[in-house]
């Protein structure tokens, strides 16, 4: 993929860290006061999608792998999380862990198949595998088919804290989102992350330097699937619903769109993209199917004119890294 040239190569690294820290503080502050101004439920949903998009960006932005089937991990995590909470009576944290583990296992299997081919085939394989698992979700008994799993209890966190209170739930989701976000930040800036970026830039050279790139790609894939699963599993508890929409291919497209709009290969881009797309869907809901047309038009516009995305453009203008 074409990438934003790091505008900071000439500036001191202190300023680089500062711009990211400032942006992070702004984000945390905004998310902390936001529920007093708008619907907490909407914000919680947006944070789940933001984590999903960040996880997806880990793969496309930092390894250069376009997965077109990320709905598989998001959706199946949300099914298992909902099932665990509703049928097995798990507490919410255990339900989310169950969903996350499901996503990790799916990611391991799908990832080890998909990394056997490169580039465009990789995207087609991930899409096809996700579609296969969509049909499983459609036919399996426990997923409830077209109805999905409804009325999932939010339960008591650790068996103690009642999550039916909207603000308590909000705090939990915020902590999960920030933990996931910081974990992704750590991955990207670790030695492991540097190898991933090397693979993105020039896989052949990374191989010649002695890196087993397939292992790195698979590890990144599993990490990305797992974190997408955290988003999906949390969403099932928040909205008390797991449905076919979450595993179907338009969802895979939506997360691509969120990341593209926000900015590929930027840390904050997917978060901004997720909020922008969800607000748009929310505002445009009355016009029905035209939302699809508008999303398609945004895709086209982003690819042709606006490849850096919102955050990427901003970072480029201000000559900082975000």
């Amino acid at each position, binding site marked *: 993929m074409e990438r934003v040239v790091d505008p900071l190569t000439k500036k001191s690294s202190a300023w680089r860290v500062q711009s990211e820290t400032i942006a992070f503080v702004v984000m945390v502050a905004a998310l902390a006061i936001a529920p007093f101004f708008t619907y907490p439920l909407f914000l919680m949903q947006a944070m789940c999608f933001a984590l999903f998009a960040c996880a997806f960006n880990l793969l496309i932005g930092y390894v250069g792998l376009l997965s077109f089937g990320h709905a598989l991990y998001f959706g199946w995590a949300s099914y298992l999380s909902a099932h665990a909470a509703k049928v097995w009576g798990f507490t919410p944290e255990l339900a989310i862990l169950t969903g996350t583990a499901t996503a990790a296992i799916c990611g391991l299997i799908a990832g080890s198949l998909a990394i056997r081919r490169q580039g465009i085939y990789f995207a*087609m*394989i991930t*899409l*096809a595998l996700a579609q296969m698992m969509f049909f499983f979700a459609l036919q399996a008994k426990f997923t409830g088919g077209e109805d999905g799993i409804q009325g999932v209890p939010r339960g008591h966190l650790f068996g103690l804290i009642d999550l039916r209170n909207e603000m308590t739930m909000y705090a939990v989701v915020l902590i999960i989102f920030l933990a996931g976000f910081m974990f992704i930040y750590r991955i990207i800036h670790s030695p492991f992350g540097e190898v991933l970026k090397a693979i993105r830039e020039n896989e052949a050279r990374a191989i010649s330097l002695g890196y087993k790139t397939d292992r790195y790609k698979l590890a990144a894939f599993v990490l990305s699937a797992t974190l997408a699963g955290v988003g999906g599993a949390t969403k099932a508890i928040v909205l008390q619903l797991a449905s076919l929409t979450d595993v179907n291919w338009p969802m895979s497209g939506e997360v*691509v769109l969120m990341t593209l709009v926000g900015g590929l290969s930027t840390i904050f881009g997917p978060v901004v993209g997720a909020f922008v797309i969800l607000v748009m869907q929310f505002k445009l809901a009355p016009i029905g*199917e035209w939302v699809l047309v*508008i999303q398609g038009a945004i*895709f*086209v516009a982003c690819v042709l004119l606006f490849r850096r995305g919102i955050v990427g453009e901003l970072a480029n203008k201000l000559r900082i890294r975000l």
Partner: protein
Amino acid sequence: MFEIFGIPSQALFGQLLIGLINGSFYALLSLGLAVIFGMLNIINFSHGAQYMMGAFAAYLILQYAGLGYWPALIIAPILVGITGIIIERAFLQWLYKLDHLYGLLLTFGLALILEGVARNYFGSAGLPYTVPESLQGGRNLGFMFLPNYRAWVIAASLTVCIGTWFVIERTRLGAYLRAATENPTLVRAFGINVPRMITLTYGFGVALAAFAGVMAAPIYNVSPQMGSELIIVVFAVVVIGGMGSILGAIVTGFGLGVVEGLTKVFFPEASNTVIFVIMAIVLLVRPAGLFGRRG
């Protein structure tokens, strides 16, 4: 009436026929994808939507121009092919220097637009399109009943597929195309207008999809989502076959259609997923695809 493996022959041959019909569409669409990918290095995600456009074009030609199936079979692919040429000139030509993935993303966006517009004007429910009068009815082959229209679809699809293969592999035009795929700069230096060739190739690939769409109209309902459901399966077909070989795309398309049909007889629950399972197995055993070149 006789039985094979405990399955009534009527059911078996019936599903085989459906498999061949589906296979016809897999072959036509994966062929178009392979031709486009060869020249443009773009995976045309809107291929399914353009197939859907073909079916809708046939429907609209009947509604507003009063022209039936046979004129539509010629006019619809031409019209949709022209929209393809416009798309290539307006959008795709700016992407050739970028990573392949941007082509996929852009055509995905186009597919959403096309499907969304179709849903707005026609709703999600399917619209009926009748089989042309000259192909109604069918014949009894002794072991099964063969509807004329289905026989025609298989024959037409085979003819078009083999015709395309012939043009690309055995004619001078095809030789130019193959040369331009290998080394566009050199072919340009010989005075051949490569950009125009790329534009026309995209138009042709899209017209193939529309042709498949017109043929599909009397079999399946004409509906906005008919393309997106199909295109993902066709992607799996392309992964299995590899895009290196035209003949490979045709053989894989028909073969997988038949396998899917047989699965419907012996293990109906898996009929939706069998092609994806085969894809996974092929990836394990022959990562480059059945007909693909490694690389």
